[in-house]
């Protein structure tokens, strides 16, 4: 049975095609103005990568901001449920999931069976999200990947506004003008990010194991800062790209919806 999961986010759209519990193919693109267009393009891409035809997909679940505007899905499910399911598949022992997406971040707690028991999300501005890192990296004139690498070398991180992206920008400009080394600013950025996340996760209540999904999970500096703040090791995700957790979860839920779901 071939199933699909499509996650149309605010910054990126992701799709996964699965068969019998295995990923056949996936795709990630920048989101377009219309969610429907993003969904079509990314699903076609995932099908091509999987080497299957669209019509072969028996059941497809949509998620993400645009989930109600995807024409081809059989069912729309919340991102919380999809990220929980996807993360659990990637780290079977996970009970707490930190997900940092483009425009929001969330912390999700699962019970032993993998059911969502509680979640919290950041409902403030872009602070504490992937967008925040993007804006800051651009200010420093470095790539997103470099931000993580840079910060690891810092010995004297700066303190940065962490509640508001606009104010943090002003702070970064001030530090740049003052000639503060880039690595210390980068570390300050990652610490600000980690600080916001730690509040969210601690508010939810941590249960081990903890893993992190979403695009920001690929940033070594943020990962290290969060580990330091929470005083624990995050379970590494190796089974698949952590940025695809939502789409993956959607595909897994699609599989559950059809007979013979694979956990």
């Amino acid at each position, binding site marked *: 049975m071939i199933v699909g999961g499509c996650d149309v986010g605010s910054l990126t759209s992701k799709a996964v095609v699965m068969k019998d519990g295995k990923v056949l193919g996936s795709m990630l693109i920048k989101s377009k103005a219309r969610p429907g267009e993003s969904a079509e393009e990314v699903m076609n891409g995932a099908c091509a990568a999987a080497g299957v035809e669209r019509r072969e997909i028996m059941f497809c679940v949509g998620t993400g901001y645009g989930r109600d505007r995807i024409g081809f899905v059989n069912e729309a499910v919340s991102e919380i449920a999809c990220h929980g399911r996807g993360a659990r598949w990637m780290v079977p022992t996970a009970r707490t999931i930190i997900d940092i997406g483009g425009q929001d971040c969330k912390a999700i707690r699962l019970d032993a069976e993998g059911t969502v028991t509680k979640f919290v999300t950041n409902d403030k501005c872009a602070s504490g999200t992937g967008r925040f890192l993007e804006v800051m990296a651009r200010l420093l004139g470095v790539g997103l990947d470099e931000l993580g690498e840079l910060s690891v070398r810092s010995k004297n991180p700066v303190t940065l506004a962490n509640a508001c992206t606009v104010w943090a920008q002003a702070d970064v400009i*001030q530090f740049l003008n003052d000639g503060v080394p880039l690595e210390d600013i980068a570390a300050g950025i990652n610490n600000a990010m980690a600080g916001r996340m730690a509040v969210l996760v*601690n*508010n939810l209540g941590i249960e081990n194991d903890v893993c992190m999904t979403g695009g920001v999970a690929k940033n070594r500096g943020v990962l290290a800062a969060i580990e330091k703040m929470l005083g624990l090791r995050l379970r590494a995700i190796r089974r698949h790209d952590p940025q695809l957790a939502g789409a993956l979860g959607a595909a897994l839920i699609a599989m559950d919806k059809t007979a013979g779901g694979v956990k």
Partner: protein
Amino acid sequence: MRRALREYNFDWMLYSTYDAASKLMAGTEKEYAHTLRYIPYFRGMIDAVLSTGEPGLSFVRTCAEYLKNIVTARERGRKVAITSFCFSPVIFYAMDITPVCLEVMSVFLTFTYRRGSAEFLDFCNEAGFTETSCSSQRGSLGAYLAGIGVDIDMVVTDTPGVCDTNANAFAFAAEWLGRPFFQLDMPPLLKGERYDRYHRDDYRALVSFLEAQTGTKLRAERLAAVLGELRKQDGLIAELEEMGRIVPSPLPPAFTLMNYAARFLFAGMKPCTDMLQSMVNAARENAARGASGLAGGAERLRGFFCYIDHYTYNMRMWRMAEDLGVCLQGNILSRNWSIDAPHVRENHMEDSAYSIDMTDLDSMIDSVAIMNSRMPMIKSIRGPFDAPDMWLEDTLSLARMYSADFVVYSGTPGCRNTWGMVKPFARETEKAGFPTHIMYSDAFDDRVQSWEATRARFEEFLRVRRLLV
């Protein structure tokens, strides 16, 4: 909050820091200089305070003693109350209750630790408290909620009617910790028989509450002893404030802080008197020589902070004042509303002030009730900003009296009551001829706006308004 931080007892951590600092001057100058190398983050503050000589040393000792009282409260069989800076501690001292003033504890942290109070602030949010609440309480409340400070027996505040976020922090703490709570409530105006009676009835209810919590009656002789000391302190403060009018001011910038810190910690107790006395002595010496209290010797500007100071680590605000040659003319916290205060006499505000009547227990309780209703913020932030006795009237009369060149608002984003009126307020101070700068930073949390950005904007204000050419 990081697990590692939970391994340290909060009060002990602060006590050992301040206790060690109070002994720094015991050795030779060379030893002192050597020791500073080992406290890179803390040395700016130590230097700023200790460079004022005996008063600075007395300040650090007083802080250490306050913290020692907290860490030894249990073994001395004392009940412990968390309370607010604008609540006079005299009643606690008269009843052998150990006060833990949250805002003061927050400042101890922000001054001495580079990471500031961030994790304690955040712990409150992790516990369910709002992040938009005032950082002045959250900065240390987090430690008590996390159970790494002294056990709290009761929660006492006096800000309902004056400051929601303050009152709310204490109400939240009481509920979270499951401890008894008492609030003194403040009506929107200050003077008049109806208001006086309300303050007095309310204060009597407080005394009954404290008696129930401690199981002992308030004794007249104990209250008399504390109030007697308070009178001496009021006299010393009046002298300091009078000397602040001299140009150049003989008071070093750090004296503004030390003036109110002494009272918040130990009003009515000897350490406060000693500290104020040493400040008066030092200021008298400067005044006799016609010297400015600024280390550089040249007073370029006189600034009045109409609300609170900025408590970023290492006392960088006071060091900035030294750098720029700005004489700090106090703020809302440093003014005392004793009937003898110079600004009370100068502006004929006797009926807005308090006096202490020691005739009997009743008259003393009445006096304390009225005195408490004139505490910083409690007095002037309760009603509309332009009503009699309120913020604008006080600010303008003080700024004029102390020949301020400009007015600065520094507060916290949690301060709903002042952020709700600071724009109309600043229009009026500008109209009255005082260039007014509004700081958008958080006096207790550099993560809202870094100190570097705050300072840059302040200096820009001085330049743009041609105050500092």
